[in-house]
């Protein structure tokens, strides 16, 4: 995974600019990687250092300003007949490679307002009733919402009906709180070598499925020690019988802000081969 550093050729440090700060980066790093290493927080939900970036939650959307670094051959807006401001473009920081000289805006009122709207949509689309959720206080969705100053859901609540899977002896799956970030999907595939989870369906019907003969967790190879069990940023995948070992008020985001760098554990596990 970290072949870069073992390479005989020395890596060339270079610089991007986030909100005016000079940020060094090494070739191969994404904007998110470089920001993270420099202690700059870009809000995100579907990203975890060490897993393949997914770019789906869009909370890490940043604007790249200078034209040369912003446009690429695949920027189809330059081919449209409509006038577009191709001088700046919005990208996901977690999937966009850092390139020398990029002038990036991240912590701006405009972007934070868009991020808040995205977070509000995540809240109203599921059933996120914090007072009844045992993840409250350790939930990254909640912490990001605090960070963005979200006070209400703004949009009409969907109140969807989603299935709970309590079949597994030690792990439960409450789809009400799933935000489809695919962290568990990737952790199971890339780290646990099991491929237990996947997303099925489209649009508002998209939902987390379990890869087992019966479609339930009990039938899958999921174990309590798996990274897929621990990586859920919300209260969708929970370990049974441990929900209240840390009391409300003493939990991670009761004591810290989500923007504090270092709260998020970096995945250290080496990818397991399928027949290991």
């Amino acid at each position, binding site marked *: 995974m970290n072949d870069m550093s073992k390479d005989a050729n020395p890596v060339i440090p270079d610089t991007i600019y986030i909100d005016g700060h000079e940020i060094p980066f090494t070739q191969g790093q994404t904007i998110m990687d470089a920001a993270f290493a420099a202690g700059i927080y870009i809000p995100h939900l579907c990203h975890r250092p060490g897993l393949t970036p997914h770019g789906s939650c869009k909370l890490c959307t940043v604007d790249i300003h200078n034209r040369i670094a912003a446009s690429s051959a695949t920027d189809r807006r330059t081919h449209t007949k409509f006038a577009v401001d191709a001088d700046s473009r919005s990208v996901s920081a977690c999937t966009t490679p850092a390139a020398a000289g990029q002038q990036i805006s991240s912590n701006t009122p405009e972007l934070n307002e868009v991020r808040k709207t995205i977070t509000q949509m995540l809240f109203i689309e599921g*059933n996120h*009733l914090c*007072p*009844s959720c045992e993840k409250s206080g350790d939930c990254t969705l*909640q912490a990001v919402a605090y960070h963005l100053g979200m006070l*209400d859901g703004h949009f009409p*609540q969907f109140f969807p009906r989603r299935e709970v899977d309590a079949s597994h002896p030690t792990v439960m799956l409450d789809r009400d709180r799933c935000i489809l970030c695919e962290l568990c999907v990737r952790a199971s595939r890339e780290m646990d070598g099991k491929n237990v989870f996947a997303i099925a369906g489209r649009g508002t019907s998209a939902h987390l499925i379990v890869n087992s003969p019966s479609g339930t967790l009990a039938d899958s190879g999921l174990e309590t020690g798996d990274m897929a069990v621990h990586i859920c940023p919300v209260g969708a995948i929970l370990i049974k019988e441990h929900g209240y070992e840390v009391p409300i008020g003493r939990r991670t985001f009761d004591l810290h802000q989500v923007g504090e760098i270092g709260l998020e554990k970096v995945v250290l596990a080496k990818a397991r081969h399928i027949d290991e």
Partner: protein
Amino acid sequence: MSNAKNKLRIATTSLAGCFGCHMSFLDMDERLVELLEHVEFDRSPLTDIKHCNPCDIGLVEGGLCNADNVHVLREFRRNCKILIAVGACAINGGVPAMRNHFSLRSCLEESFLNGVGVENPQIPGDVELPLLLDKVRPIHEAVQIDYYLPGCPPSADEFLSVLGDLLAGREPALPKKLIHYD
């Protein structure tokens, strides 16, 4: 009562809530005495006044679970210059909204027909009972809300902070550290 005219008039109500937000409001303890120098209560469970008169501030706890809730909420909106959604239930339906997973009929059957220890099972249908809404709803889906005070419940400090801001003519704001949904 000579300066009663200068006092802010506050109405409060609990709709589909548990009165926990009201209890938390009272947690300001002796600071309530100081607060009462500056505010007076109109319609509220604290005064037992039954209908809302023109007020400066309305504090609404709880979401909408029945027709009466909607009626009361509209009365508050008509009479209050500033309406504040207080607590998780007012803001997104909260714990009462967990019944939205089930049909209203199955909720009623579970409570009044099939529940443990039910005697003389029948679903109440008296005309005086407000009709239940199909789903529990947050209050901003029915009326315009001016400010939101999240928390389950918001702490007494948060109530005092918001009222202090309004008394001073400032836009109510809370430090991010105080914002919590649980």
